[in-house]
């Protein structure tokens, strides 16, 4: 029997999978997530079995709030694909959104003062 083990199926450096393979071909997220949307793993276990990609995504969000951009960077997946995985986990309550009240107003002087104090105290 011929072994294919030493014959690479993909070019070195190329992604192992086509990006949307990990979403089962789905290209539309179920919610509108922004690059800066923060999510965190829920303290309860997910109610449904997870794929390895979902599991890895969830693991990245256990230590603290993580932005969509950071999760995508850590998974090495495009942002658009990452958003679909995150939506799946949000929909099954394995992840929760962490945002006190909608998107912040970056022109709010009070908010900017807090940023300044924080940066100066680093």
């Amino acid at each position, binding site marked *: 029997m011929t072994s294919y083990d030493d014959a690479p199926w993909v070019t070195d450096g190329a992604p192992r999978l086509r*990006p*949307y393979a990990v979403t089962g071909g789905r*290209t*539309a*997220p179920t919610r*509108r997530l*922004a*690059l*800066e*949307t*923060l999510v*965190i793993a829920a303290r309860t276990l997910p109610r449904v079995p997870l794929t390895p990609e979902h599991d890895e995504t969830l693991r990245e969000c256990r230590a*603290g*709030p993580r*932005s969509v*951009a*950071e999760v*995508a*960077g*850590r998974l090495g*997946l*495009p*942002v*658009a*694909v990452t958003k679909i995985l995150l939506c799946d986990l*949000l929909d099954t*309550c394995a992840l*929760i*959104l*962490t*945002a*006190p009240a909608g*998107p*912040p*107003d*970056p*022109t*709010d*002087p009070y*908010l*900017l*003062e*807090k*940023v*300044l*104090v*924080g*940066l*100066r*105290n*680093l």
Partner: protein
Amino acid sequence: MSDYAISDDSFVPLKIVIAGGFGVGKTTMVGAVSEIPPLTTEETLTAASVDHDSLDGVPEKDATTVAMDFGRITLSAHHLMLLLFGTPGQKRFWFMWDHLASGAIGAVVLADTRRLADCFAAVEYFERRGLPFVVGINEFDDAYHYTPEEVKAALHLRSDTPVMCCDARATSSARHLLIKLVEHAHARSVAARAAPPAEPAAEAGAASASESAQPVPTSPPRSPA
């Protein structure tokens, strides 16, 4: 929504854009101030994602990948998380900047005096968008030293736009740039609120366009002074 976490884990995310030409030190600066090693985040816009991600400004292309540098600074005491995005400076990436600029505090434009023209596109974009920005002259050892005033004149900057020399490799210097940016953004917002009807464009641009990704009109490129 019912599925928001209201707890100690609640942080307010705030974006800061680090822009500039190729090789000017964006990745270096993100790495110098970020509390995590900088990550590469890829935004791929394909025909499949057109409904969700605007392709305005990218004619005759059905797939574009933009690699951004990502870093973060958590200000735990204030429940704030600064998200730093290092982004390519070329005009063809303006559609990406729309994503980044909406809802951002502002931008740091890094300039290399040996190739000052590389930051024209970024300066032009942020001026048109009304987003607060500062210019950091990243000092390379073999570059002739220009004063911030000379660079400000060469870039035709508004008089209130801060320009300062920096070393993008040094945490203190890179952090100082961020502080300068936030001070500038704060001063502008205070001034805008003191005279609300004067500049409606700046207010509307920053506050309302969180998802709309308005394309910025193009104009002839700046000429060096």
